[in-house]
């Protein structure tokens, strides 16, 4: 578009009045805003002393955790879908046949490079068994890069730390299922499929 284009409408800045030239009304206007915030409701948090409260912890995307199942074993089935979905390629898994009779595959190694992670939550979304979840821990720090590569034990310990404050989705879903009637069990059919059921679960 050129300067002389007929579609351009040129407007001139209006002339300032005498009062406006003193800048007093604007000055008072600004001071009013400051005064309102001085006496109004506080929304900032005094961070290290006070911590932010998350009304819906499942929605926040902080440090990862690897959930445990009811028997305290890692819930992950090592399907690599989180690693596949990860746009930052920060998840590294090594799988093996599981030592338990009711499970087929499990991760012997599960590393997340927290420095490389962009906290997008795709891993959480991809997980077919809700084993990886992002917690509300947001003040993440370490002394070295190596320390920031979280291994399986570390990720499980994050779960142990946070499971009471923010229960995992599988626990919430189970509570919801046992609370409601059997009619809506079909709704959980697709997502919360559990490969720990054994052939008997298929028959039920």
């Amino acid at each position, binding site marked *: 578009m050129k300067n002389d284009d007929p579609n351009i409408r040129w407007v001139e800045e209006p002339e300032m009045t005498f009062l406006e030239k003193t800048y007093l009304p604007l000055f008072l206007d600004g001071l009013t805003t400051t005064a309102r915030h001085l006496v109004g409701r506080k929304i900032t948090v005094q961070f290290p002393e006070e911590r932010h409260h998350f009304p819906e912890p499942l929605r926040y995307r902080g440090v990862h955790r690897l959930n445990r199942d009811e028997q305290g074993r890692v819930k992950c089935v090592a399907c690599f879908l989180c690693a596949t979905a990860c746009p930052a390629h920060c998840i590294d898994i090594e799988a093996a046949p599981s030592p338990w009779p009711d499970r087929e595959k499990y991760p012997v190694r599960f590393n997340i490079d927290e420095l490389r992670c962009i906290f997008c939550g795709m891993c959480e979304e991809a997980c077919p068994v809700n084993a990886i979840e992002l917690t509300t821990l947001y003040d993440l720090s370490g002394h070295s890069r190596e320390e920031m590569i979280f291994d399986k034990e570390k990720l499980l310990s994050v779960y142990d730390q946070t499971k009471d404050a923010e229960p995992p989705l599988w626990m919430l879903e189970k509570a919801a299922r046992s609370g409601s009637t059997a009619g809506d069990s079909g709704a959980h059919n697709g997502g919360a499929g559990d490969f720990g059921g054994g052939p008997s679960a*298929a028959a039920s």
Partner: protein
Amino acid sequence: MPKAYIDGREIELRPGERLNGIQAAARAGIEIPHYCWHPGLSVVGSCRMCLVEVGTRDAESGRIIMLPKLMPACNTPIKDGTVLVTNSEKVARARAMVEEDLLLRHPIDCSICDKAGECRLQDYHFQYGQGERRAEIRPFTSRKRDLGDVTLFIDRCVMCGRCVRFTREVSGSSELLVIRRGAQEEIDVLSDLPLHNPLSGNVVDLCPVGALADKDFLYKQRVWYLRRSPGVCTLCATGCSIWVEQNQDRVYRIKPRENPAVNQWWICNAGRYGYPLVHDPRRLRGVTRRGGGSAVPLDGNVFSREIPQQLRAAGKLALVLSPFLTVEEAYLACLWIRGLDAAAEITVGPIPREGDDQRFPGGFVISAEKCPNRLGVEEIAAHFRPNGRSYAEWLEAAGRGEFGGIWVAGGYVRPWIDEAAAARMRHARLLVVQDLFPSPVSDGADYVLAAAAFAETEGSYVNARHRLQTARRAVRPPLDNRPAGPLFWELLGRSGLYDPRRVLSEVAAEITYFSAASGEIPDVGIDLRVDRLAEVAPRPGTV
């Protein structure tokens, strides 16, 4: 010319050609889904996935008469005037029904199944299955059964029976069988006769679903991470066409590459599970200068600067070519050594052999000669040194101290030389050894170079039936390694990067035996005897 009609498309049949519906449709560019049919096995028509409408067209009147019922395309021989319809509503419904039936008893544990990503059941379900299920299906864990060489996930099986037919028709060992009937059918073996034969790994490739799992590959990688390059198996003189599948420079599995002239659809277990040698920690690394009991790592550039002078000063030279080298590497090595010493002796190292050729009922042969390129390397050696001495005679001469400098271009995958032979070679003033693994001869050498393993090399091999095939490089060799091809390319003072294709066309122009390899080498390789037959055989019409 007889004609058949697939979905309105006309295809021509060559005289005497026997095609079934699936093959004919493939020629017209139409895919007919199938589980149980495989071009290398007999037809059973048991999966019912390839059901199509079949009819005949009268050549004179042009009238088409269709059969009332759907027929399996795999068991429908195509003849003049055959009409197939694969895109009708009736066919689509039949396919969706087959898919629904298979999924009723399937564990749908795709997220932990090794086949996910290359599974027929998955692919066909998305392509031909119905959008929603009528039965309530919950994922569950499949039962497992150890069949011997492979693991069976019983509940994932779709009972196509390919594996059973393979053991009966191709490997001839007949270990696998079907037990029980109907919905209780399962694949099994007799308790004292587990699946154990030199071709058993192929049943994993044949399995269209995740029922038969490779014990070696189980849970190592998800298949969508793997990248494949066409290669040639170097573990015997059959030279099977293979796919080398890797992720981040690590080979995870070897799969057969279809080649009707060599291995058809199969490879043997030795080739399939032989890849760990590429990542063997005992492999030689880099370039080292040895002497006085110590080994000093050497910069590759320093080596290529100082070695020509050292060899020239050493006196009469000799070159030992291993049958594991590619045609291009052997050619460049000979060219270079002859440039240093025009009278240099060239010999071919020992040819590893094990027992006799193993032949299978399906026509597959595992060669007794456990190297990929004896014919190619021998031809090259004979070109540069006609009437050269055999390895045994040459070794005698080396023992007498006839040679001042010996270059061993190895690459052997197994121990190949004993202490006595190595001691004879040490009579030379300068001994340079390039090999994969430490051996008595590398222990006593002045310079030791690491060779490249098969997946790290690009080049051509000539198999036992004079077929030249080209392998692509699948993974990069370790950084400090100087593989034979690029090394001799550099030593010859050639500019740019090592280009095996250019070398091969040079070889084809120079040596009559290789003359057929002058142009582009097709994926299935090229028979080097083609040109010779033309020389000897009378031309049609001239007799």
